C-alpha cells in the first residue's frame, strides 16, 4: 500500500494520463450532438451515476484507504447529503447548485460528530458501530416526527434543473457537466491534501497510530477531521444524486448502498485515487447489466435460477481479497512494474 502511495505522492503536478482522462470525460457528452440516439440520454445518466459513485468512493477511500478507519455507514452520510439538498430545494427555494456546499458542511459536521466516538473504536468495533448506523438510518428517515420535512416513506420529488445562461445543452448533458466539475474539484482537493503534510500524517496514522503520535501528530484531531472530510465528500455525492435523480426516498439509503461503496473501493483499489473512478464506473456497470450477466451465467452454467447482482458483488469481493487485494488500480501498477523490470 505504501508503495502505491509513493508512486504518485512524490511526483510534482498531475500526471499526463490523468489530464487526458479528465479531458476525455469532458468531451464525451458532445458525442450526443453528432450521434443522435434516443438511448444517449440514458448513457449520460449512467455517466452521472458513475461520477457520483466515484465521489462517494473517494470519500470512503480517504477514510479507509488513507486513514485506516473502516466505515460501513457511509450510506448514512450519503443520505444526509441527499436530504439536505432535497429539503433546501423543496422548502427553502434555494437553487440546486447552492445546496452542494451546504450538504458538504452539514455532512462534515455529522461525520465529525460521529468521528468522536469512532476515536475510541478500532478495527472490527468501528466497522460494527458504522454497520449499525447504516441499518438504523432508513428507519430514522421514515420517522413521523420529521415526515413533514422528509416526506416520510414516500420521499420527496424534486424538479430537474435546466442548463443556465441559455447554454445549448440538454438537461442531462448539463447535469453530467455539473457532476464532472464537482468530481474534478473534489479529486483535485483530495489529491493535493494527500500529497502534503496532512496526507502524510493521515497515512502515518493508518500505518502505526502510536508511532505517529510519538512523532507529534495529533492523532485524535486528524482522525476526527478525516472522518468529517470523508463524510462531507460522500455527502456532496448524495446531494448530487438527489439533484440528478430528482427524487429522494429512505429506502435507497440502506446498508446495500454502503456495501456498494465498499465494492467500488475494493474493486478500484484501496488507497488509490484512480481506483475511485474505476470503482464508481464498476458499480454502475454491474448494476445496469446484472440482468444480462445473470442471463449469460444461466446459459453458460445451465443454472436454474437468476443470479442476483449481490451474489456477483459478494463473489467478486471474495475473489479480489484473495487474488488482487489492491484492486484493479493495484493490479495495473503491479503489471506496469513487472513490464518495467522485464524491458529495462
Amino acid at each position, binding site marked *: 500500500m505504501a508503495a502505491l502511495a509513493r508512486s504518485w505522492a512524490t511526483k510534482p503536478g498531475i500526471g499526463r494520463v490523468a489530464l487526458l482522462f479528465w479531458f476525455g470525460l469532458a468531451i464525451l457528452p458532445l458525442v450526443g450532438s453528432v450521434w443522435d440516439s434516443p438511448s444517449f440520454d440514458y448513457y449520460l445518466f449512467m455517466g452521472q451515476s458513475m461520477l457520483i459513485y466515484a465521489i462517494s468512493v473517494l470519500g470512503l477511500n480517504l477514510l*479507509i484507504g488513507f486513514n485506516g478507519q473502516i466505515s460501513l455507514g457511509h450510506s448514512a452520510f450519503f443520505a444526509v447529503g441527499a436530504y439536505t439538498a432535497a429539503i433546501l430545494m423543496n422548502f427553502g427555494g434555494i437553487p440546486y447548485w447552492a445546496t452542494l456546499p451546504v450538504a458538504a458542511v452539514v455532512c462534515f459536521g455529522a461525520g465529525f460528530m460521529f468521528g468522536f466516538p469512532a476515536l475510541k473504536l478500532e478495527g472490527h*468495533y468501528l466497522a*460494527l458501530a458504522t454497520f449499525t448506523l447504516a441499518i438504523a438510518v432508513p428507519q430514522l428517515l421514515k420517522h413521523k416526527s420529521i415526515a413533514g420535512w422528509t416526506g416520510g416513506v414516500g420521499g420527496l420529488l424534486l424538479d430537474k434543473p435546466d442548463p443556465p445562461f441559455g447554454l445549448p445543452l440538454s438537461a442531462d448533458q448539463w447535469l453530467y457537466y455539473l457532476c464532472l466539475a464537482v468530481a474534478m474539484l473534489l479529486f483535485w482537493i483530495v489529491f493535493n491534501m494527500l500529497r502534503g503534510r496532512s496526507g502524510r500524517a493521515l497515512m502515518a496514522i493508518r500505518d502505526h497510530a502510536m508511532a505517529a503520535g510519538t512523532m507529534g501528530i495529533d492523532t485524535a484531531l486528524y482522525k476526527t477531521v478525516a472522518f468529517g472530510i470523508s463524510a462531507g465528500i460522500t455527502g456532496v455525492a448524495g446531494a448530487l444524486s438527489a439533484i440528478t435523480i430528482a427524487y429522494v426516498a429512505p429506502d435507497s439509503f440502506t446498508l446495500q448502498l454502503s456495501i456498494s461503496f465498499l465494492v467500488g473501493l475494493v474493486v478500484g483499489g484501496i488507497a488509490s485515487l484512480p481506483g475511485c473512478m474505476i470503482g464508481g464506473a464498476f458499480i454502475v456497470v454491474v448494476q445496469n447489466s446484472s440482468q444480462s450477466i445473470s442471463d449469460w451465467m444461466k446459459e453458460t452454467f445451465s443454472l436454474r435460477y*437468476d*443470479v*442476483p447482482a449481490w451474489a456477483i458483488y459478494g463473489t467478486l469481493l471474495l475473489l479480489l481479497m484473495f487474488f488482487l487485494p489492491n484492486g484493479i488500480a493495484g493490479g495495473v501498477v503491479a503489471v506496469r512494474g513487472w513490464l518495467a523490470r522485464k524491458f529495462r
Partner: protein
Amino acid sequence: MEFFVQQIASGLTSGAIYACVALGLVMIYVSTDHINFAQGEMAMFATYLAWSMIDAGVPYWVAFGSTILVAFFSGLFIQRVILKPLETAPVLALVVCFIALLSIFNALAGMIWSFTIKQFPSPFPRVDIFGNGLVSAQQIGVVAVTLVMLAILTVFFRYTTLGLAMRAAAQNAASARLMGVRVSWMLALGWGLASGIGAIAGMLVAPIVFLDPNMMTGILVYGFAGALVGGIANPMGAVAGGFIVGVLENLVGSYIIGNELKLSFALIMVVGVLLLKPAGIFGRVIVRRV
C-alpha cells in the same frame, strides 16, 4: 400493569433470540477475535434449509436437528476454505470477506427461495399456560431452548478436554500450539459451533417474524448490542446481555420512543456501550501490551 408484564414477557422472548445470536457472535469472537457480520445471513440461510425440509414432509425435530448439523459443517467449511488463508490478513480484508459472505447468502436465499414471505412452523403451541393471557407456551419454549443451549455450552467449555483446548487456543495460541492443541482447527470448530447456534436462533425467530431473506438484519443488530452489553468475550454475559436488550427494547419501544425508532435505539446502545464500557457488564478488561 398487565400491559407492563406482557411487555416484559415478550421482551424476554425476543431477548432469548438475541441471546442466541449473541452466543454465535461470542463463539466466533472468542475463538478468532473477529466480529462476524454474516452471522445473521448464515442463520437465515440455515432456516430456509429447515423450511425446505419441513415443506418436503420431514418431521419438525428431524429437520431441526439435521439443519443444525448442516449449519455446523458449513460453518466449519467456510472457516477452512475462506477464512483460513486470511488468518493473518489485516482487519479490512476480513470485514470485506464478512460483508461478501453476507451479500452472497442474502442473494442466494433470494435466488433459491424468492423474496416472498413464508410461514415457518413453531414446535411450541401458541396456548397460554397460566390462563391469564400473559405468557404463551411458545415464549416459554424459546427461552427454554436458549437456556438449555447455554447450559450445554457451559458444560462443554468447562468440563471437556475439547472445550479446554478451544479456550486455550483462543487465549494464547502459541502456548496452546506448544501443548499440542491444533489451534487452527479449534478456530474452525468455533465457526462451526457459531453457525449451528445461529441456525437455532433462526429457527426460533422465524415463526415470530416470518421467513424472508432480510429477516435477520435487525435481529443481528440487537444480537450485537446484546453481545456488547454482556461482554463480547463471555458466553454467559452475552446471554444475559441478550435478555437485557430484549426487555429494554420492548419497554423503551412501547413507553418512550415508539416502535419506529427501535433500530436507532439499538444504534445508541451499541455506540454507548462501546464508548462507556467497552468490555461490557460481565466482561474482563483486556490490557494490551505494546
